[in-house]
């Protein structure tokens, strides 16, 4: 049995972030104390998650547990569930969130008016709380409520930067998100109606009964299709990704990093839980949802990169590259095997570490070029802000899948996982094509920033990167190499986590 301290960590993590969100408006308005408080709270949750992971994987421990919320037992009450996968994901989410905040500390100060930075912190805390809740919850309706909290907070951190452009992007994001969460809500009501349960394991039992007796198959298929479509819209799977480049390209750098690296992943993990824990892989295969997800993932891998190729604005380019990376994750989920889902989870972790690094680097470089975001304006900026340049190069190598960088690990595990399935040719072809396409737009960007430009230094009057920026970038780079070189223990841990999901 797990010790009492670790047992309470899933609830405590969500609670700490909620309390931080409530306390933040009481702090002095025009100082930077609210941001520091958010950072400390997120760091505390990261430490707690690391301890939970240690306690769960300690030899002789049971690998997962349910935490009842309130005093009602299982079929009625609300529950959290924690296992190694949940612990490792919440650790990665907290670390990436913390680094996105610290790395963009100075650009946040430039983009957001002093009076509104406090609101930004409230939103970041709420966003972290909702991500943790989505990771840990075992109850589908709780998941819906936190999906909506996530939606509001995510749209608001786009709109918090002054300007009509961000308001428009946020509105567009909000409308698409609301369509998504509306579909999710309808699907959850249908599922509740069919199964009579809201807890995931109890739903699974009821769904198995329905499937073996072949009753209510059409409503079951419809609700699965609706919930997948709703969450796919929110996680920017390709045909539904039109809102993403606007929202991620126009917001402040910290918001872009958080949105691309983390917010999408919360929804994807919810899909994984619904597939694995609520329906079960056999039912998913019987209802053919795995094929649909696989095809959409393939299309997203190619089309995301094709759109990225056409961008001139560096942040929009990185945003479209996120669409392609989401395609990789859905490809893994669509393989519908434990290995495929483990590879998808590894890619979630890799992308959550690499994409915030790319956005932080792009922010630093465009800052060095005098706040210009066009690719050609970044010529020679590597020599002004070397740390940002290194971040972009490492991120680009990772996205292309150069061995030794994080992206290679997840692409390798996706490839290996696809060998067990009948669609291996398609998966391999798409992985190869997408990697080449990634290279086609990341390599020119790297060449541009490293090209010497005769009057570059004259124009670049930007301040030198701060110590905090260098430190965050250093941690990002370390994480990138760590994931690239030592991914095998992590993958083993994830596989154990998926098995007890």
């Amino acid at each position, binding site marked *: 049995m797990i010790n009492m301290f670790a047992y309470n960590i899933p609830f405590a993590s969500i609670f700490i972030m909620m309390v931080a969100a409530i306390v933040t408006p009481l702090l002095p308005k025009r100082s930077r104390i609210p941001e520091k408080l958010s950072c400390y709270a997120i760091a505390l949750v990261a430490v707690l998650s690391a301890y939970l992971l240690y306690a769960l994987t300690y030899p002789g421990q049971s690998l997962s547990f349910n935490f009842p919320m309130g005093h009602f037992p299982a079929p009625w009450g609300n529950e959290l569930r924690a296992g190694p996968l949940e612990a490792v994901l919440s650790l990665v989410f907290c670390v990436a969130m913390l680094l996105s905040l610290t790395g963009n500390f100075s650009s946040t100060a430039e983009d957001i008016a002093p009076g509104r930075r406090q609101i930004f912190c409230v939103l970041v805390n709420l966003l972290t709380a909702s991500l943790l809740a989505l990771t840990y919850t075992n109850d589908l309706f709780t998941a819906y*409520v936190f999906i909506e909290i996530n939606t509001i907070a995510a749209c608001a951190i786009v709109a918090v930067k002054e300007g009509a452009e961000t308001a*428009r992007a946020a509105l567009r994001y909000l409308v698409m998100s*609301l369509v998504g969460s509306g579909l999710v809500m309808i699907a959850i009501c249908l599922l509740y109606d069919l199964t009579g349960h809201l807890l995931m394991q109890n739903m699974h039992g009821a769904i198995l009964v329905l499937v073996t007796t072949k009753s209510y198959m059409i409503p079951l298929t419809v609700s699965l299709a609706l919930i997948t479509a709703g969450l796919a819209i929110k996680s920017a799977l390709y045909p539904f990704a039109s809102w993403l480049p606007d929202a991620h390209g126009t917001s402040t750098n910290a918001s872009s990093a958080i949105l691309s690296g983390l917010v999408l992943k919360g929804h994807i993990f919810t899909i994984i839980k619904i597939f694995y824990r609520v329906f079960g892989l056999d039912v998913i295969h019987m209802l053919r949802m795995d094929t649909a997800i696989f095809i959409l993932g393939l299309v997203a891998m190619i089309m995301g990169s094709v759109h990225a190729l056409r961008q001139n604005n560096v942040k929009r380019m990185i945003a479209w590259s996120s669409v392609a990376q989401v395609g990789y994750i859905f490809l893994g989920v669509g393989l519908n095997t434990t290995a495929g889902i483990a590879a998808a989870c590894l890619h979630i972790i890799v992308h959550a570490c690499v994409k915030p690094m790319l956005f932080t680097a792009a922010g630093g470089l465009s800052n060095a070029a005098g706040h210009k975001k066009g690719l050609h304006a970044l010529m020679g900026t590597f020599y002004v802000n070397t740390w940002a340049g290194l971040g972009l190069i490492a991120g680009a190598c990772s996205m292309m899948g150069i061995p030794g960088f994080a992206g290679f690990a997840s692409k390798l595990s996706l490839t290996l996982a696809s060998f067990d399935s009948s669609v291996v040719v398609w998966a391999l072809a798409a992985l190869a094509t997408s990697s080449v396409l990634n290279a086609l737009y990341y390599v020119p960007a790297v060449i541009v920033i490293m090209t010497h430009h005769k009057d570059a230094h004259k124009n670049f009057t930007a301040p030198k990167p701060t110590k905090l920026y260098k430190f965050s970038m250093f941690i990002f780079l370390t994480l990138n190499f760590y994931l690239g070189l030592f991914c095998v223990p992590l993958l083993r841990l994830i596989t154990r986590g998926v098995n007890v999901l």
Partner: protein
Amino acid sequence: MLEKLLLNHYEAAAVILSGIGLTNLLLQRNLIKKIIGLNIMDTAVYLFLAAKGYVEGRAAPILIENGSGGWLTSSALYVNPVPAGLVLTGIVVSVSVTAFALALTLKLYESYGTLNIDEALLKMTEEQEQLEAVIEEADEEVLS
């Protein structure tokens, strides 16, 4: 087919309403109408839940006195309280989302003077082009 529809007329109405709401949310260009569409869609889900939660002949889940100082505790007398709880939670969510969407709409209207999301985009690109033209002229003056 028709019999089934008549038997489940609440659910049928909910499906039609949510279809109307979803279409409005997706296809309307006017933001206020979009938000109204969102509310229609949410309300349809509440109707569905309320219809599913209602069982004829059963009381609301509040204990009834049995006349001799005790309470009627048989679960067969009451409806399940969870659907009503879900509806309440859903209403809270949709109110907050609506408020936030209206606030953003207001901000957009203050900037562009239009509620149409396409017109706003058009005005934004025009403004950007003008700005770029001004910057180019300034650059040329400096160079000459």
